[in-house]
């Protein structure tokens, strides 16, 4: 008689990832089953295939992918897990699409504590359930100690655009109104406040959030939105410059109208940073025709993720693609592309 295998379950409390967890053998299977499958549980994953098959709805499909590397892995308001779910959902949603499915691929460094991996995976599962976008396929690799920074997560998302919706970075027209869905710079400041070299006390939390609900809400009221984009790395300033370039237009911003939390403003002040260039993970920038501007703004403000939405400027006819800004001080300046990384000033 062959005895049934006894497999000691993962020691999530004290265990660590070792090279065996990435070797494709029993240890890999156990990690997937006890950690990933248990957390993400859904009909596609349960089939245990190397891929997920699903019926594609009619319409234009959208696909987006995003690699997530963040230090620290856990930060006020979120962690790399929920961030990796929100980031890709948002990239899909900025086309106007309804996100449908996600894939997730993990590169884990040898020695990474299983307890932290579980926290991250649980956070992903929770974010994916809350968003109604299941993670239906995935992959895990383990790299030797020193060859990764804890864990890297790449997620890919697919979605479908409802008929009649045409959203494109090249869609801004002179006269269009420019909106932002809330305060800018929260995520970047929350992360910086926990960096090893620079801890400071702040109540600022990352704004990481899935924005497809807000997008659907906006499109239901104003289907003819011209541009949507989430201003992540490089902040609002960089996103506006991207759109200006893609659309071949200029922009005129009103600094006083751009919502910035006072703590973010203060932190940027003493770090010598400009909040317009600091990352967001739960905000979007929208552009629509001026006649729809009021309706779009009130619609955004009626959604929980758009309470602080504001109209921040107007698209102008400018072949140079300059983004200009009337400053709070009453002057005028350009809001240029970021050159290199934003670094603190010494003076």
């Amino acid at each position: 008689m062959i005895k049934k295998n006894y497999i000691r379950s993962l020691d999530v409390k004290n265990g660590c990832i070792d090279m065996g967890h990435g070797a494709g053998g029993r240890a890999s299977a156990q990690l997937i089953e006890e950690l990933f499958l248990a957390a993400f549980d859904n009909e596609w994953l349960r089939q245990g295939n190397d891929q997920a098959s699903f019926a594609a709805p009619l319409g234009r499909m959208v696909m987006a992918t995003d690699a997530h590397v963040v230090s620290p892995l856990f930060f006020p308001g979120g962690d790399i897990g929920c961030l990796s779910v929100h980031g890709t959902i948002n990239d899909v949603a900025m086309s106007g699409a309804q996100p449908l499915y996600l894939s997730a691929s993990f590169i884990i460094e040898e020695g990474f504590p299983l307890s932290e991996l579980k926290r991250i995976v649980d956070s992903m599962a929770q974010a994916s359930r809350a968003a109604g976008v299941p993670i239906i396929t995935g992959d895990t690799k383990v790299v030797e100690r020193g060859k990764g920074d804890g864990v890297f997560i790449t997620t890919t998302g697919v979605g479908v655009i409802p008929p009649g919706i045409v959203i494109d970075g090249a869609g801004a027209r002179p006269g269009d109104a420019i909106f932002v869905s809330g305060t800018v710079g929260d995520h970047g400041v929350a992360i910086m406040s926990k960096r090893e070299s620079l801890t400071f006390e702040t109540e600022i939390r990352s704004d990481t959030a899935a924005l497809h609900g807000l997008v659907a809400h906006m499109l239901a009221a104003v289907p003819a939105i011209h541009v949507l984009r989430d201003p992540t790395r490089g902040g609002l300033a960089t996103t506006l410059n991207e759109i200006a370039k893609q659309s071949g237009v200029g922009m005129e911003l009103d600094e006083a109208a751009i919502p910035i939390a006072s703590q973010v403003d203060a932190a940027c002040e003493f770090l010598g940073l400009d909040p317009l260039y600091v990352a967001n993970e739960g905000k979007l920038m929208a552009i629509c025709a001026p006649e729809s501007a009021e309706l779009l703004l009130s619609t955004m403000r009626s959604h929980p993720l758009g309470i602080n939405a504001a109209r921040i400027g107007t698209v102008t006819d400018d072949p140079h693609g300059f983004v200009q800004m009337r400053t709070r001080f009453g002057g005028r300046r350009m809001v240029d592309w970021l050159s290199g990384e934003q670094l603190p000033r010494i003076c």
Partner: protein
Amino acid sequence: MKYIDEFRDSNIAQKIADRICAEVDPARQYSFMEFCGGHTHAIARYGVSELLPANVRMIHGPGCPVCVLPIGRIDHALTLALERNVIVCTYGDTMRVPASGGMSLIKAKARGGDIRMVYSASDALRIAQENPDREVVFFAIGFETTTPPTALVIRNAQACGLANFSVLCCHVLTPSAITHIFESPEVREYGTIPIDGFIGPAHVSIVIGSQPYVQFAEQYRKPVVIAGFEPLDVMQAILMLIRQVNEGRSDVENEFARAVTAHGNVTAQALVSEVFELRPSFEWRGLGEVPYSALRIRPMFARFDAERRYDLVYKPVPDNKACECGAILRGVKKPTDCKIFGTVCTPENPMGSCMVSSEGACAAHYSYGRFKDSAVVIA
């Protein structure tokens, strides 16, 4: 932010702007130099120039510490990081300054150099204490504002007998640079230097006081108004300079009285002179060799002097021949007068000192003000 927002109030700004408009003599030009990068930054970021009448022109001076740092000094830091296996600690905005052969500290880091961005000199000292098996060098740059903290860590390093720590000292002095703008050999070929007055440094003056500018103001008959770094400070200082010019005065006035005294921070000054001594000459990027314009570590603290410790020999590296930084830093030319501005020379690929950091004259114009040039072209 309440304390700061009061110094950024647009209503008060408009009132000062109205006063300036009312008091300027429309028949003449006013050219003022703000020496400090901090002022250049405030003017650019808040769009202060927009609020000034057309006959008041601001000239951005050489007071941006990373801009004037010569290539040869960055080459020293690179040598230490890449060839001597030293941990080099540096302030953030030094990371991107271009060095010889297309290198920079940020690129050297990518090639395996152990280069760490720090927020204060004491962070560098801590890194040395935490890495007793490694040599740690603090790449110390800046004007009188950042000099006392460097002096303090050198003294502390000596007090605790730290054997693996030293400082690559590139600290420079404000008053000698201001004087050099009028006195350098190049000035003869430029003819008249069109500067009617100076906005004096904010943080530097907190340390050195307002007294050091008195002799300069008298000798060159140029008014100096020391101003804070907030945009209203700058506006008010411009108004005070206009009044001095109109009245034919050349006094040192202090707009930044909430922080600056006549004699400055005497404790900090004593600390600096305990640890540092004058260099007979020092190269400034854009200005060339400036006599008695920089500090080096006194022999008493020689073991903390990275130049001696690693036998570093200074080799000057010339800028692009077409670069007009020398003339721009003296107000003789504008950034747009330079042939390579915005073409070969951009913030991504700076050729001369004025393009290196956003506080430099050319970079500030490129990043914040070049929309004005295009308006002219279209018209």
